Every structure is written in C-alpha cells, then in structure tokens.
C-alpha cells in the first residue's frame, strides 16, 4: 500500500524518475542511459553543489577581473606556486574552462530535463483528473460518513462545491449505483516550477547576448570638454566578440561642471556631473545631472559616473612669446585626499628644443606626518602645484606608445623646480614661461551597452514568479465515492468515503480534507460522521 501511495504522490510531479541500475547492451542503450543519467535529479543536485564549491576559490584567491594589482603582487611573492595557479586559471576562476564546463553541463542537464517535463505537464493539463482509487480509506487522509441523500445527490453537491472552489473536477458513475468524484488542484505548482527553470535558461541567454554583442568603454572628460560615442574618443574600449562599430549609438555630451562635496573629515558625501547630451548630432542638447547612483540612459547605452579628479589649466609660452601649450591637464589622484600627479609634454618648444613638466597637485596643501607637503583635504581649499621642468629628448617621436600621465625622466635634465598657486607664473632659465591659471575638475565616464539586459530582466521576473508559484502552491487531489448502503432496497442510506493527497513536501491533506468534507456535508446536518484512519 505504501507503494501505491508513493506512486500517487509521485504522479503529482513531473520530476524525472531515478535511473535504474541495470545496464543494457549495445552502444545505443549506453548513450541513452548516459543521457538519462545526465538529466536525472541526482546529477542536477551534484552539479549544483559542484558549482557552489567551484566558486569558493574565486573569493579567497585574488582575481584579475577584480584586482589585477593584487594578482601581480601574489605572482611576485609566489614565483613557483603562482605560475601553476595561473595555469589552472585560479586567478580567473569565473572565466576558467573548468568553471564553464560545470555550468554548461548543468544547463545541458537542465534543458534535457525540462523538455520531457514540459511535455508531461502539458499532457497532464489536458487530462481528466485520475479516477478515484478503489480503496479510498487506505489513504492517510480519509473520512467516511453516512447520509440519507442518494449517491448522485452527494456527488452532485461535491461536484458543485469543488467547481466553485476552482478545482478541476470530474464525475463518473460506476455500476451498482456508485457515484464518484475526482478532483485536482494546484497545477500552478508544476507550471511555476517549469517557468522557473525555463527562466534560468533565459537568464543564461541574456548573459550570453551581452557577452557576445555588448561593449564597454571608459573616457576621461575635463570640465567644458566633450565626448562623442566613437571608438577613437575612448581611453579604454572593450568590444565583445561579435561587436561591430555600427552598434555605437551616435550620442555625444559635454561636461559643463563637476562638483564633489565632502564631510569635514574628508569622507565624500555627493558627486554631481552636470552634462548636456545630444542623442544624435542634429538633436538639441539636453541637460542632465549625473550622480553615482543615477546614470544616463541614452539610445540603448548607459553612461555612468565612475571617477573624478582635478584638471589644471596650464599654459606655456616659449622664449619668443608664442603659446605652445594651453589646456586642461588632467592629474591623477594618488590618495583619498587627492594628492595627484600629472605631466605636460611639449615636443616642439621652438628652436629644436623640447620641454617636459612633471608635477604634484595638492587641492588643500598641508604638512603630512613625515614633514613633506601633502594634501590634507580632498576639496580645493588651498590649491598648490609643485612642478619640475625637464629638457632633453622626451621620446615622443620614438614610435613607442607613451602614457600621457607619466614622463620617464632618467635621460632628461632637470632645469628647475617650483611651487605655484593659481594665477602665478614661472619663468624658466631658457626663457619659457609656465602659467598655472586655475583648477578645474575631470570626471571619468563608463559607457556600457548590454543588449541582453531586457532578456535578463525578463528572466529575473519569471524566476521570481515561477519560484513563488512553485514553492507556495500545493498540488493536491481529492476523491469521493458515494456507495449505496448494503442493507438492500429498504435501506436508503448512502456511505460516503472521501480522501485526498498532497505533495509530501507540504503539510498533509487532513486539514483541508476536514474543511472540504465539512462544506460538502454542511447542507446535510443529519449526516453521521465517522472518521477514517
């Protein structure tokens, strides 16, 4: 009897059956068996656990994607172990082939498991509820009572009640005047479960779509400077595998003003980048206040504010009085108080000479713990620019790519150092003049286009909806048999048996059975109830 009960309960789910132990002969059955093995619940369980375990090293070993500097440090400190770990992709766990193997196998298993389950469930949705078992009173939740009403009256009442409580109901008449009712409810559980699992596949497709067609890039823009969305304007551009330049939306923007505010301790409290953007070259500019949690959405691309720093207005005149450099020069921050460094390179100062300037900028100059000048507050309260000038070959024409933020000075001659406040000029020995006009700010923006985002969001919504249905709805069956009492013609009594089943996960069915029977017998107070086992 336990056998039949667990079969009945199992019939309420489309979960794959356990794979049997017997091995058939020939290659075909072997493959089929392997496939059944791969799409079994046990394999799904194993792969889920394996995926969780595989993710753990990625949280303790430094990862390139998160902190490349730390990875380099680790490699330097572990000259033997490091390369081996590198070989095993332990610094790129989440892009490692073995990590991908696990989740791809999991998704193959998932799809292989889903297809037959969807077919089974679709069939179950179309089928009539299964007929009442002969021995209802053997089910754990069952009751029996007697009534004066005729069997088909009882069945009709039950039918009506179940129908109005939105059960799927079926009435059948059996020989000897027996009337039965079979009902089922909670198909939504299985539907939700399938929706959830399909949504997982949708989520993976969304991730793949972004990974194949998206792009990402960062650009530094100083106040009053601008940006147009074309590859050559980016400082860093990372296209995906199948990306083509025609996907770049033709928007542009200018950074009008950037403001940062800080607590007295120097902790930042807010950042605003006031920009004006055009969605196409012919469109009118639209003002926008960009903040850390408030990106700009334009034409399928998103523009984020990701960093900021100081840009110094510096000009240089040569000995002849010609302006050879005039512009906003971005300085890169070195610490949280925005002590920053930057360079100016002038490869043709005139007269065949070259000039290089390296500098440190202190938004609020003060004296640090070591006695050296440092910045003691991130806001520009007392700006100070400390400069060194260099002559010699800057290497600009050497063909080797140069960073605009650094100048190797090993082969250059120092021709002086100074400290400037805004508005002040510096006359160099060779007749050139450097002027520090004032302080601007720059902001870095990240532009990202993720074509899979809508798919991802849809997947996420269905994941939640499917989960709620799957975990909160109870699938259950209810049966009723009304049998004429065995007392012969004169005996007008009817024996009614009712029983039900729920998926074993949920609480048993007794409570609901009591409730249903109560409502079925409610109009018949004369019924004599006798509880079953």
């Amino acid at each position, binding site marked *: 009897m336990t056998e039949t009960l667990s079969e009945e309960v199992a019939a309420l789910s489309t*979960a794959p059956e356990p794979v049997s132990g017997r091995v058939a002969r020939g290659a075909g059955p072997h493959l089929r068996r392997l496939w059944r093995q791969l799409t079994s619940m046990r394999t799904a*369980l194993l792969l889920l656990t394996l995926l969780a375990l595989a993710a753990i090293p990625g949280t303790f070993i430094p990862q390139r994607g*998160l902190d490349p500097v730390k990875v380099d440090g680790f490699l330097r400190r572990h000259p033997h172990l490091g390369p081996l770990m590198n070989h095993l992709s332990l610094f790129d766990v989440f892009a490692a082939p073995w990590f991908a193997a696990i989740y791809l196998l999991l998704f193959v298993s998932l799809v292989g498991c889903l297809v037959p389950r969807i077919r089974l469930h679709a069939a179950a949705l179309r089928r009539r509820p299964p007929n009442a078992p002969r021995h209802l009173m053997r089910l754990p939740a069952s009751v029996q009572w007697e009534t004066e009403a005729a069997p088909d009256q009882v069945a009709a009442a039950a039918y009506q009640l179940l129908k109005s409580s939105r059960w799927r109901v079926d009435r059948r008449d059996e020989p000897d005047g027996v009337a039965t009712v079979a009902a089922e409810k909670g198909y939504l559980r299985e539907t939700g479960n399938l929706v959830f699992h399909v949504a997982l596949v949708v989520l993976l497709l969304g991730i793949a779509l972004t990974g194949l067609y998206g792009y990402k890039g960062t650009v530094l823009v100083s106040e009053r400077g601008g940006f147009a969305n074309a590859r050559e304007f980016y400082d860093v551009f990372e296209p995906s595998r199948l990306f083509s330049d025609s996907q770049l939306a033709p928007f542009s923007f200018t950074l009008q003003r950037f403001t940062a505010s800080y607590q007295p301790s120097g902790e930042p*409290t807010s950042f605003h980048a006031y920009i004006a953007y055009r969605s196409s070259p012919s469109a009118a500019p639209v003002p926008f206040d960009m903040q850390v949690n408030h990106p700009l959405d334009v034409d399928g691309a998103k523009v984020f504010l990701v960093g900021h720093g100081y840009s110094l207005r510096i000009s240089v005149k040569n000995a002849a009085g010609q302006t050879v450099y005039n512009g906003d020069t971005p300085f890169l921050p070195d610490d949280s108080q925005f002590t920053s460094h930057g360079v100016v390179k002038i490869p043709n100062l005139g007269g065949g000479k070259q000039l290089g300037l390296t500098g440190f900028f202190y938004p609020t100059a003060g004296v640090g713990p070591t006695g050296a000048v440092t910045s003691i507050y991130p806001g520009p309260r007392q700006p100070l620019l400390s400069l060194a000038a260099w002559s010699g070959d800057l290497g600009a024409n050497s063909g080797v790519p140069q960073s605009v933020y650094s100048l190797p000075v090993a082969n250059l001659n120092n021709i002086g150092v100074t400290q400037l406040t805004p508005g002040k000029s510096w006359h160099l020995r060779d007749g050139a003049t450097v002027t520090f006009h004032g302080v601007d700010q720059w902001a870095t923006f990240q532009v990202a286009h993720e074509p899979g985002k809508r798919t991802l969001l849809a997947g996420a919504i269905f994941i939640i909806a499917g989960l709620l249905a799957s975990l909160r709805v109870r699938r259950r069956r209810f049966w009723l048999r009304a049998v004429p009492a065995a007392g012969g013609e004169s005996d007008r009594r009817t024996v009614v048996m009712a029983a039900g089943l729920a998926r074993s996960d949920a*609480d048993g069915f007794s409570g609901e059975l009591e409730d249903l029977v109560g409502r079925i017998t409610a109009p018949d107070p004369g019924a004599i109830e006798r509880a079953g086992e």
Partner: protein
Amino acid sequence: MSANLHLAHTSDVLLTWAVFLYAFAMLGYAAEFAAGRRAEAAGGGSETVARGARRAALFGRGAVVLTFGGWAFHIAAVTTRGVAVHRVPWGNMYEFSCMVTLVAVSVYLFLLTQPRVRAAVTGKQRTTESVRCLGAFVMAPIILYLGLAGTVLYAAPGPLVPALNSYWIKIHVVAAITATGAFLVSGVITVLYLLKDRYERGLPPLRVALLARLRSPRNPARVSLGPGTAAAVEMGAARGGLMRALPSAAVLDRLAYRVITFAFPVWTFAIIAGAIWAEQAWSRYWGWDPKETWSFITWLGYAAYLHARATAGWRGRRAATLSLIAFGALMVDYYVVNTVITGLHSYAGIS
C-alpha cells in the same frame, strides 16, 4: 545633518533591555522543560502530574510574554536608531544584525501564533505548546548574534557612505535581512530535526557517539566506554524528556521546509535587486565580487537542498545537512566577507 547622540544612546539602552528579556525568556522556556520532566518523573497520582504540567505551562506562557516584551523593546531600539541617524537603520553590520534578529524573532512569533502551523505541529489549533519548545533554541542564537553585534560589530551612529545612499538600500537590503532572519530560524529547526531524527532512530545522543568516536575512531560501536557508559545511556534517557517534548522529526522537517520556501524566493529577489542596484552604482550588474559570489553560493546551496528533497535517497537527513551547509555559506557571506575579505561591499563600519 549629524546624528542625535542622545537618541542613539536611548536606542542602545533599549536594545540591552531586549537582550535581557530574551535571555529571561530563554530561561523560561528551559524551565518549562525542566518542570514538565520533573512532573513526569515524580509520577504519583494523575492529580500531581496535572499540577506539574500546569506549572510547566505557566513557565512556557511566561516565556512567550517575555519574548513579546523583548520584541517590543527590539522594535523600539531599531526605530530610535533610525530616527537618531536620520536614515534607515540598516547601514552597517551592527544595525544589520539588529534587523536580522528582529526578523528571526518575528518569524518565530509568527509560527507560534499561526493556527495552521500549530495544527500541523500539535494536531490541536488552540495551543502554542509545541511550537513553544522551539523557543529556547531560537532565543539562544539570537542572544549570541545580538551580543556579537553590541560588542565586536558596534558602530557609532553616523551617515551612510555615498555608495549606499540610494533607494535601493530599502529594497535590496530589506530583502536580504528578511531572508537571513528566516534562514536563521530554519537553521535552528533543521538542527533540532537532525537531533530528533537521531532520537527517533534510537541512536545514542550525539555527545555519546562523538565521545565513542574519539576513543576509538575505527570502531566506535565496539568500544566500551567504561563506567561512564551507563551514565551516558542514562543521559540519553534523560535526553528523551527533551526530545519527546519536541515535535516529531517529520513535523520539524516540514516546518523547516516551510520557512525555507518563504526565505528562498526572498533571497532570490534580494540577489536580483542587488544586481539591478549594482548596475546603477558600479555600471555592471554582476562582477563576482566576494559578497556577490558568496550570496550566489548560498543560493545554490538552498537550491541544492530543494532539489535534494525531490531526489530519491537524498530526502530527510542529507537534504537537511545541505540546508545547514547553505546556512554556513550565508554566515561566511555575512561575517567573513564583511570583515576579512575586502570588496566593493565594504560597509561593515568597523575598522
């Protein structure tokens, strides 16, 4: 706007009171056990037994009242903290712990007062008796959690770091807190399930089994434990009192499942909301930051638990063990990631 230090201090005092009340409640629940067992052991006429049972129930009901009292102080404590710092009171680990425990107590009180749960546990709708025997076990980790929060993790009242300053903190963090609090309760019930299951299978208490394994790792069944054995077996019988008072293993299993089926979708939602927030704040929805990764590991763990319940040979004990491992991952996510591993989610508020 700077924090209202006076009010923040009031909040601290209220929380201390909440912890005291919870501690007394725990003693009350324990006293109910003890009194019940003494009454049973004393035997005698049905009159004395009934009197003993009444006394036990009195302790139990008192403990419930104390729990409600602690809960009220707890709510007052987080509310005043929020008012004092002019923001939501879940901006650092200290405040997060206070909220998680508040959710856990709320879930316990909900189970206690739900007629359907009571019916499932006791077969009777009218009594809180059997859900009440979870009380001591729920109170213990909550007191521990709050103790840790008030000492090691305590953060002075202050504003949020800008990265957290978004309405998403209300959505994502509330979901994470709610799920964590509920997972805490399910974890307690699962441990009780495993103990009760041992008891129902007639195995010696875990303590005795471990002792035997320590003495003879190879063959724990063979070893004679000496004169202590009899005592241990006695203890096992005494344990019977405690174990008998607990609902059956099947009921505990279902109860834990029920709580997890509430917490799991909420946790799923928390992760998704977190991804949406991350996309706005850091321009990527998923970056395998340690916090994200451990949340995902936790999620996989509970997904594995739900699968195990539907897999032949994995139902029951093994599934329960998986859910405890998943809870372990949640604790790593919460304590280890916030304090040891650095990542973008550095909001612990401790240095």
